[in-house]
């Protein structure tokens, strides 16, 4: 187990280091950052001033190791636009994104676990087919469009929920539902497949032969085994949701890290952009590691891998 842990940790650190490099390279793609920061009406002297002020006159290698060295200890630099520490900015905005992501995940699980279990129990019936159709529809739904439709219906016409903002918890309902939509198809299919596989196994036959009740077989024996991949994928899906929440934050004007990144891209505020990419990637890496650990704890057979 310890060896597994250490190996997993080393891979995670290597991935994080690679992401750091990619995030740095990405912001340097445009060639000369000083020109973009100074703006279209800047004179040559202005550009030189900007270049000096932000340390862009140093060799690229120096800039790179400076960024890696500082970022590794949590110093993500200073925002050009907000004139504040990037780590502070992200720290302020992160709770909004995390709340949104967790809301989305909870809604997704509340929908897809029962649907997947029922579809598996009623395999090849009309209900099963209906669930599969719902999953297909969910997969094809453009999230930003669904968000706008919900705003029109529930925000404007029915007036049940606020259209934007995070003043109250109600503000998270619509964005949470929209975000959940992206994870529901995969989670439902996985629950269904896992349950079908579990129900066909020997230990379920044994449980049946013992005369256990249907509910006990389903929930205690089958679900526990089917849940292993679902738990793992749920953690990974949360990572994807946090990364993808930028679209939904923009639709509902939620000021999370995604919204921050969107603003910063428009303003050429590259320290914020590269830090944002790094933070979201590190959260994802952490979540996948958590998923692997959970798997290993729940299913000892996986520890050797």
């Amino acid at each position, binding site marked *: 187990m310890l060896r597994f842990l250490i190996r997993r940790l080393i*891979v995670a650190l*290597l*991935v994080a280091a*690679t*992401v750091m490099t*990619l995030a740095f390279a*990405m*912001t340097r*793609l*445009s060639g000369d950052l000083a020109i*973009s920061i100074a703006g279209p009406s800047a004179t040559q002297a202005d550009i030189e001033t900007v270049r000096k002020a932000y340390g862009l006159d140093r060799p690229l290698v120096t800039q790179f190791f400076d960024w890696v060295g500082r970022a590794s200890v949590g110093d993500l630099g200073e925002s050009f636009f907000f004139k504040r520490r990037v780590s502070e900015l992200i720290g302020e905005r992160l709770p909004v994104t995390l709340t949104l992501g967790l809301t989305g995940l909870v809604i997704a699980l509340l929908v897809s676990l029962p649907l997947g279990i029922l579809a598996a129990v009623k395999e*090849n019936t009309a209900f099963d*087919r209906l669930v599969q159709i719902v999953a*297909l*529809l969910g*997969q*094809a*739904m*453009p*999230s*930003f*469009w669904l968000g*706008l*439709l919900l705003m*029109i219906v529930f925000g*404007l016409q029915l007036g049940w929920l606020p259209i934007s903002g995070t003043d109250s918890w109600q503000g998270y309902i619509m964005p949470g539902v929209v975000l959940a939509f992206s994870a529901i198809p995969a989670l439902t299919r996985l629950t269904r497949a896992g349950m079908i596989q579990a129900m066909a196994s020997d230990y379920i036959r044994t449980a049946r032969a013992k005369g256990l009740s249907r509910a006990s077989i389903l929930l205690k024996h089958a679900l526990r085994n089917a849940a292993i991949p679902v738990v793992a994928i749920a953690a990974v899906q949360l*990572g994807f949701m*946090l*990364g*993808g929440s*930028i*679209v939904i934050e*923009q639709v509902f004007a939620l000021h999370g890290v*995604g919204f921050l*990144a*969107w603003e910063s*891209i*428009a303003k*050429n505020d*590259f320290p914020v*952009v590269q830090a*944002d*990419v790094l933070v*979201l*990637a590190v959260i*994802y*890496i952490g979540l*996948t590691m958590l998923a692997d650990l959970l798997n290993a704890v729940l299913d000892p057979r996986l520890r050797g891998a």
Partner: protein
Amino acid sequence: MRRGWRNAGTWAGAIIVGIAAFCALFAPLLVPHDPFAQDLGKRLLVPFWMPGTDPNHLLGTDQLGRDYLARLIYGCRISMMIGCSVSLVSGIIGITLGVLGGFMGGRVDDVVLFAITTRLSLPVVLVALAVVGLLGSSMTLLMITMGVLLWDRFAVVARATTMQVRNLDFVSAAWCAGCSRFRILAGEVLPNIASHLVVVATLEIALAILLEAALSFLGLGVPPPLPSWGLMIAEAKDYMFFSPWVIVIPGVCLFVLVLGINLLGDGLRDMLGARSDT
């Protein structure tokens, strides 16, 4: 019964994709109006099912008086172009990596797996937005950026299927016959995993179309005045509370097209007997 239902889905998907492909190919011949021609005297005309419609503009006009139907048909062309080219770029990257990793195993496979893990940890929408934001939006840049970001599923499936095929008898036979490594990969392995890859390619086209729409909606995808469906929704957003149809029409098109491609992909998967874990 089950088969019949499945077939109906596949047919529906094939018909939707067929219509979309037709629209994309013959857009200039099909459009009733120039999709870029503005007419401020005819702003936000309503579509045919609402009272007070203009028979010249079946689906009405947008906030600049451009014909909505014409823009939709051209938007279909853009979606299909983006979907196919992104799938091609990501397919080349993903299949190369996946087949190499699956076939060579060992160190090479470790590197491929690491690349897949790293790619998955990058927030796609954010990175694509940042690249387009820094370099300025153009169709070519958008296709390349998305292609470079979306190869993960190709790589995962190509790697897994190559591993299954690698140890089969006909590959061993080819080794014994003295075939080169390249010949075995191109002549024996690739044809045998192709059906799985076709399925991934269809699903990837759908994914790329959705991502393009999201990027265009955020203002960093297809540059205006090109009529991308995502961009049409973004431009119409300010009017959606008074005339909801302005966002409903392009959204329904997007939804139906992606649904059609997914249905076709699922149907192909059943037909080709390819079982992919996604």
